[in-house]
């Protein structure tokens, strides 16, 4: 383990990371976002979901540095008297959870489909890739809206609130898997004709084993990059869905939900209710995207 860590600090990737101040900065911002979100129940100053602690007298408090602000609510409060900073931390938690799960889902689905299409080839490849093409012609937010709409129509309202989080994860994941499938299929086509794969075929190793143990480890590199870039997009997609009111249930507000709620008060002067969740979203997505960009360059031997 110690040797692995030592090797990492000696690697090209670490070297190119240190050399780029933008990357270091975005890594720090991303780390703050992730830690703040993950540890929200322990480090948030208030619990915005504890109804007993809410006090309507505290509603619409501006940020602490404004004239009427109090030190208790650093970023002000919303119409219910909830502390904005705590709401943002809890909201980022939901946003990250949805983003990560959706990306993981899209990765698993896309990698499996791409591997199968690329390795088996022929009619299977044709069929799977045409499905991919068709799906790529729809904007992903439209696909997500469609999935959400169908589920809403099919299941009763109480059930829907319980499974809403999974529906959003599924909707976002299903709209983004073709990117993974195409990336993996491309590299699989190259790998499957390499002689080490043929050597395994001569031995008679079953197809699925060849795909999993020979081809997969050699095609996951680019997937890592696509997944990182996709994480930002997934978080944004979730925020968009929640802003439109079809995303996560109102009992678990994400950053998108907070922005939508705040939007109602924007013109009456309570700007902080929508601006701060918005800024948090920007910081999170931008830092993740910049990290993804850097990773793509760092892992591309042609750009070294």
């Amino acid at each position, binding site marked *: 383990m110690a040797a692995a860590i030592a090797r990492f600090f000696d690697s090209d990737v670490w070297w190119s990371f240190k050399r780029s101040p933008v990357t270091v900065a975005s890594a720090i911002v991303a780390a703050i976002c992730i830690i703040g979100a993950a540890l929200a129940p322990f480090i948030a100053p208030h619990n915005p979901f504890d109804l007993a602690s809410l006090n309507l007298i505290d509603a619409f408090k501006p940020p602490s540095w404004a004239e009427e602000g109090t030190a208790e609510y650093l970023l002000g409060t919303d119409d219910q008297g909830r502390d904005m900073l705590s709401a943002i931390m809890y909201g980022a938690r939901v946003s990250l959870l949805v983003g990560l799960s959706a990306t993981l889902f899209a990765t698993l689905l896309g990698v499996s489909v791409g591997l199968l299409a690329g390795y088996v080839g022929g009619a299977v490849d044709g069929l799977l890739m045409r499905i991919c093409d068709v799906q790529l012609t729809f904007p992903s937010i439209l696909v997500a809206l469609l999935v959400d709409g169908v589920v809403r129509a099919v299941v009763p309202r109480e059930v829907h609130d319980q499974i809403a989080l999974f529906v959003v994860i599924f909707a976002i994941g299903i709209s983004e898997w073709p990117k993974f499938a195409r990336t993996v299929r491309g590299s699989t086509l190259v790998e499957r004709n*390499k002689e*080490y794969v043929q*050597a395994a075929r001569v*031995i008679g190793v079953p197809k699925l084993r060849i795909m999993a143990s*020979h081809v997969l480890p*050699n095609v996951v590199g680019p997937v890592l990059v696509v997944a990182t870039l996709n994480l930002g997009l997934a978080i944004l997609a979730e925020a968009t869905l929640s802003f439109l009111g079809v995303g996560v249930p109102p009992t678990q507000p994400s950053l998108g939900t907070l922005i939508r709620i705040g939007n109602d008060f924007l013109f009456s002067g309570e700007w902080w209710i929508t601006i701060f969740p918005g800024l948090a979203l920007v910081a999170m997505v931008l830092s993740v995207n910049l990290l993804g960009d850097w990773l793509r360059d760092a892992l591309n031997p042609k750009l070294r």
Partner: protein
Amino acid sequence: MADATPMFEVRDLARHFDVSRPFLQRLVAREEKRILRAVDGISFAIPKGTTLSLVGESGCGKSTVARLSVGLYTPTAGAVIFDGRDLAEARALADQRRRMQMIFQDPYASLNPRWRVADIIAEPIRAFGLVTSHSAQQDRVAELLTQVGLSPLDRQKFPHEFSGGQRQRISIARALSSNPEFLVCDEPTSALDVSVQAQILNLMKELQQRLGLTYLFISHNLAVVRQVSDRIGVMYLGRLAELAPAETLFRTPRHPYTRALMEAIPDLEMTGRERIPVGGEVPSPITPPSGCAFHPRCPLANDRCKRERPELKPAGDAMVACHAVEEGRDDAMPMPAIARDAA
């Protein structure tokens, strides 16, 4: 030496590839289907413990024969027979599949870059369940590494830590790990330095003597082939032009194409001597010439060669597919210098 039943045999083996453009494009352009006849009816047999080599220019179908021989391709026509069984039938049985292995051309592509050497070599052992315990497997890997001239300590390394020649040794160790009896070697030395080529060839010969292996050896290099073969088949455009014992082939090459190939072998003693090159290019195997495929480049070609495809017929202790040889017209073409020296 030669057994009654050969270890490996192919009969009228053919493999055609459909290289047509997609259906719609073909319909629009009113094109015919385009069939590439990579291998077009060849027959040979390899007795146990001997080496048969196939030589020929790039694109003559020799690698396709190699792939057909281990079942990586299925034949379009004809039969591949492994130790008395049809290949497809033999490959369905693990204990038969274990007996055949392949060594590949490119030592940089034939080892999975993400696997350790121990795992690479042990893959056939695990696939066939040859040893059960982990320690027995490690011992076997160490033994194999020693056998191919590497250190048992190399098993913890990754392929990129080795040179081309060492990688080819690892490839050989992997092929040997299932105790095979028949090895298909697809240009195993063509990606290596000349000095390393000799080492690998010597290793392969030594292993053959020690383990009684049967080789099907594919190469484009006649000098390499001369070192290892008992018999040599010369391929041209998917067919055998000549099939002869190695010494016969080098002493009295009969087919005009074989003679032309011999003429092209570089030789220090022949520096400065006049060479007669083979004119022209290899024709496309999609639209092969009529009659004998070699006739556009052959100095002995006549009308019959343009019309009628020659079959492989005995000539001395060789088999030659040439009308000129059959009719005794082949004296018109001089023996290549290398054969004159040998004789």
